[in-house]
């Protein structure tokens, strides 16, 4: 059916994470499969778009033979996400991917869609509080299909210097691939900084570190900056920047090409202009790509959207997913070491003067034993295991309970965003508790769909 109007436009995914890598070859798509309920996730090649970066056209869509995170020169392949335009053609109508065909029906060309990328790296600014230390890239609105460099500019940079944050590209719609989409490719993960001192000039190590010398020490004070004990607004943890050693911890003035920002879309129709935006971030690769953290930004967003209560909508796939992520975390953690003198065991003593003691009985905290315990819970959800697990969960307002019993709650040995022992989101805790209650009443819970196109 021909369309006559667009009611609303959105960009999906609404929050995309790019991951740094210096290879010119973006990472192929892959998926997870779980052939063994307590085994590792398998990385499975998935259909990948291959782009001619000169024209912006998709040349083909196919599955690669294998999942390779590096190119032939050992460089890491960046994760370069696609962001799609979705449209709703009438009030309360469904959202569908916007295509060239839809634009044709409205007598519009692909160039009617305009994109704008604004990215920032405010790490130096966060510390120095000097707005001239903000590094910002802004493409302005544009509609061509070329690779658009995202150059971070800063008032305190040396003349003409910029930090590249990667590039954006409006993917040219074609008859085979008519959807309107944009691709963000992040930077290489390089380090930038100020000119070397006389000592540094002689050091080959120093020259190897910096991709470029960009920061003007006559204009800004990032080099030499120090987090002061008397300043209650330093970051937490404090002094987490490259420095020349302790006492005092002074910044070397290093910067990087991580960033976050906003991708905007505008579409001018005859009588109105439609707008949408999404958020994009460039962060480091996930170095154990066959697992996921126990508490994620996805969990935060879900709680912000849906609240802390389930209203009976607990499903098995959700529970399995949380327990699997807990297992994937402990598998790669030296639980014996973390039990005493480092990590939270150390933090309790140093922050609050707590008596220095192991968190768990050292005889039961070996990594293989802990992983095995998690596997048992995951394999036997309907047994009493989940009820046991649920009773052990730490509630968000119990993070300051540093008694023996309090410190042994789950997730154990890990730090939360408040610097104290980690609690899951309240919604995650609620999911596990509701499922445990249902099992105890010998009721089945709905299997639940595996989260669609995700996790």
């Amino acid at each position: 059916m021909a369309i006559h109007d667009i009611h609303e436009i959105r960009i999906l995914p609404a929050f995309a994470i790019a991951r740094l890598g210096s290879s010119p070859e973006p990472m192929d798509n892959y998926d997870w499969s779980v052939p063994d309920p307590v085994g590792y996730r398998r990385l499975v090649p998935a259909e990948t778009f291959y782009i001619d970066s000169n024209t912006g056209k998709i040349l083909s869509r196919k599955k690669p033979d294998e999942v390779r995170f590096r190119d032939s020169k050992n460089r890491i392949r960046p994760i370069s996400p696609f962001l799609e335009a979705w449209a709703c053609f009438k009030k309360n109508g469904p959202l569908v991917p916007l295509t060239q065909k839809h634009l044709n029906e409205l007598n519009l060309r692909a160039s009617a869609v305009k994109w704008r990328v604004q990215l920032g790296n405010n790490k130096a600014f966060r510390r120095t509080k000097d707005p001239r230390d903000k590094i910002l890239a802004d493409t302005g609105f544009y509609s061509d299909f070329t690779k658009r460099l995202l150059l971070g500019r800063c008032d305190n940079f040396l003349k003409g210097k910029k930090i590249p944050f990667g590039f954006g590209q409006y993917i040219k719609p074609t008859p085979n691939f008519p959807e309107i989409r944009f691709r963000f490719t992040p930077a290489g993960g390089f380090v930038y900084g100020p000119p070397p001192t006389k000592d540094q000039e002689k050091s080959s190590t120093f020259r190897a570190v910096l991709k470029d010398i960009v920061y003007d020490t006559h204009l800004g004070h990032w080099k030499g900056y120090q987090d002061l004990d008397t300043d209650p607004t330093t970051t937490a943890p404090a002094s987490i920047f490259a420095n020349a050693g302790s006492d005092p911890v002074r910044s070397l003035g290093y910067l990087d090409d991580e960033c976050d920002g906003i991708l905007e879309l505008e579409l001018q129709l005859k009588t109105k202009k439609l707008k949408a935006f999404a958020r994009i971030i460039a962060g480091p690769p996930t170095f154990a790509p066959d697992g996921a953290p126990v508490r994620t930004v996805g969990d935060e967003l879900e709680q912000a959207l849906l609240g802390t209560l389930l209203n009976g909508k607990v499903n098995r796939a959700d529970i399995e997913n949380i327990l699997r992520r807990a297992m994937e975390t402990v598998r790669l953690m030296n639980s014996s070491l973390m039990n005493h003198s480092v990590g939270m065991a150390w933090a309790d003593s140093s922050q609050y003067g707590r008596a220095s003691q192991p968190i768990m009985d050292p005889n039961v905290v070996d990594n293989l034993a802990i992983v095995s315990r998690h596997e048992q819970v995951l394999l036997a959800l309907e047994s009493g295991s989940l009820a046991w697990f649920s009773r052990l969960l730490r509630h968000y307002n119990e993070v300051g309970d540093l008694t023996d019993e309090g410190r042994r709650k789950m997730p154990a040995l890990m730090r939360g965003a408040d610097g104290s022992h980690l609690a899951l989101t309240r919604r995650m805790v609620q999911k596990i508790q509701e499922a445990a209650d249902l099992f105890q009443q010998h009721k089945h819970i709905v299997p639940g769909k595996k989260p669609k196109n995700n996790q």
Partner: protein
Amino acid sequence: MKKASSIEPKNLTAQLHYRGEGNPPSSHPSTAVSNCYPGLEMDFRNVWKHIFEGIVLLEYSNLVTGVEPGADEKIQRLVSSGIQYELISADGIPMTAPVTGPFRHSPEKIHDTISLEWSNALAEILPKAGQFVLCKFQNNNNLREILSIDLKVRHFFDVDLNRNGKVVSQRVVIARELAGPGDLTQSLCSPWQNDYRECDCFYWAASRPDFVNVEPGKDGKSKGNNWMQKDRTESGDKKYISDAEDGIAGNPVLISYQDLFAAWEENLRFIIAGKDEPLKKSVKKVKVLKKKKSK
């Protein structure tokens, strides 16, 4: 890659979970750590700094660090007098919790207070977006002085409002007012590689591995390598070498800050199924750079 054909605009959960054609799992927020201290991909705590109209909060504690332009006189008081105020409750919900436990000088007990992480503490406030809630602020220097101010809660997600302020349409993108470009990553390490070497960052093990190549040792206990060990080719039981193994920070057998700054891609290995990624013949050996004495 299953192609999504349509999504109901009101099905926000489906939109939140949507990964996009051609995008691997690690492009989705469900693979990004959120126990941010300070975080890897972003410091998600920054999203809460502007959740109340008129004030700016510190990302990791309940301290008021600023007021927004145009804020009324009562709000201005929170920063104008040189006194520091902390948000202790919102809509009757505490923003802090007690710290208890055995003090190092037995039989004394710890009596302290911790400010709760915003995401969980504010979870019941978010549904009141667009409304005013009573916020109580405590004077840091005079704990008896409490300022009570009604503050409007911002919408967490991007919304369209009608004339009466009622939400008529919502999207799953975090509202612009909460964070500008660069704000979500601002409190991360600079450069980010620092975070792979800072001590005690093992609470992100699923994406920044710690204990790798783990297998049962001769005594039946787990043996494995520290992900930061340069050499993992030993025969017999594997040995996890920690940063403080030789009594000093900056153990030279571990990858150093300089190694990471100069050649992180060569020095950091992907861990698949708990083991080091196999290196292809064409791949160079892990590059060992000169250790810098100062760190």
